[in-house]
């Protein structure tokens, strides 16, 4: 699901143009989402080096701030925000940014991507998991797109090389029957 950036209120910097979807298609998400989980819409804005995700599902939108890292320039907005999947109580999102280039054009064409798991209630959103999904600056690369299984309520991640922080090639994120995030293996 592609997203768009929402127009600024008095409190937010307007970044509608900067957050418009990139011309290139995002990595495909597999498999289809469950009809049991109500879906919504996710958009983003950036202010003071922080990205705020706005999740619209239900009566009113809820916001959650997510941090980037030094591989993303402070005022750079997300190039795109892709929803991986929904559960009754959570949404899984990937926000993508152009890399801060290093010397000798290192990663000038690169991207930095963050996976976020956001717990949702009627009136609030809470970031429950955040990890660096892919990175040009840190040479982190998925072997395949994130595999969301709505029936099993799992998200399978596989990297070409061991993730430098997780120190493993694969990770499965699981949700319980209510859609809440379960502890990692």
């Amino acid at each position, binding site marked *: 699901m592609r997203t768009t950036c929402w127009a600024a209120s008095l409190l937010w910097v307007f970044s509608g*143009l*900067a*957050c*418009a*979807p*990139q*011309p*290139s*298609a995002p990595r495909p998400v597999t498999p289809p989402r469950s009809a049991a989980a109500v879906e919504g819409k996710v958009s983003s804005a950036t202010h003071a080096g922080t990205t705020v995700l706005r999740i619209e599902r239900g009566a009113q939108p809820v916001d959650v701030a997510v941090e980037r890292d*030094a591989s993303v320039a402070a005022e750079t*907005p997300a*190039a795109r925000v892709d929803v991986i999947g929904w559960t009754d109580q959570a949404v899984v999102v990937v926000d993508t940014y*152009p*890399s801060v280039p*290093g*010397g*000798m*054009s*290192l*990663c*000038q*064409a*690169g*991207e930095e991507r963050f996976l976020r798991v956001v717990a949702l209630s009627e009136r609030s959103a809470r970031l429950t998991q955040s990890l660096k999904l892919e990175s*040009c600056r840190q*040479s982190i*690369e998925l*072997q395949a797109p994130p595999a969301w299984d709505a029936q099993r309520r799992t998200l399978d991640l596989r990297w*070409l*090389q061991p993730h430098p922080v997780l120190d493993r090639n694969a990770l499965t994120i699981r949700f319980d029957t209510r859609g809440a995030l379960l502890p990692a293996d």
Partner: protein
Amino acid sequence: MPILKLTTPAPNTTFTIADDTTMPPVKFRTDGSGSHTWSWTMKWGTFSVSGTATSPGNEWDASAAIADIGGTLSVTVTAAGQSATIAVLIRGTNPTEALVTNYLAEKAESAGFDKILKQESRFRHFNAQGEPIKSFDNGYGMCQLTTPVPSFKQVWSWKRNIDGGLQLFAQKRNAAIAYLGQSGRSYTPDQLRRETVCRWNGGSYHVWEGNPAAWVRNGNILCDTATGNIGWDMTDAENAGKTEAQLRARDKGSYSAPPTAAAHWKYSGVCYADHVLGS
């Protein structure tokens, strides 16, 4: 009581490191006799290192102590309870292309890095004043090392600087090997070189397709051959069916800044590899 004097060299004498990083003799001599203690400090910008040496007589060659560094060398010599101080300058000499390529030829997994160095820095490590080149974002030397912050030796020695750059290049090479070799797929040395150079700039060069399947250049990327790494995704409806000339005419006015989300051109590691290695 006679005062200890430094008789050689003259204050602010400049000593120049050779293009192959060899430090020339940097000899200090006093008019004293007996054991001498030499306390030295080398400073350049925010970099500084100090040391102490002793000599049985009144002469000391600092070249071994200051190998691979440069800047302003301050020396205080003490003998028989007296001391004297002097400062001299250490400057560098750019290597030739042959020296750099010969040095890289000793590094087994550096294929393609020489081309990046030629493209990005023309093998220049020092400015006209013989001091290391420093970029606006604190990138030092031939490889513009920034993160992690380079050491004093990596700033002043082009060989140590290249070694630092090769550590980053190795990450991209390892990633290229993992990508090209997944599922037991085979690849050529040239494909590895292109994939590595592409990843240096960002993204992957090859896709697995065809019948029989093989690694081929991503055919969806059309490059602006007048630039170093700008191109277009031809699956974008705004680009499809247009020629390079048409797309350049449309977009070149915005090349001076990174592409916005509304742009239909982009930086491409595929185009970077084609430009650096030849398509």
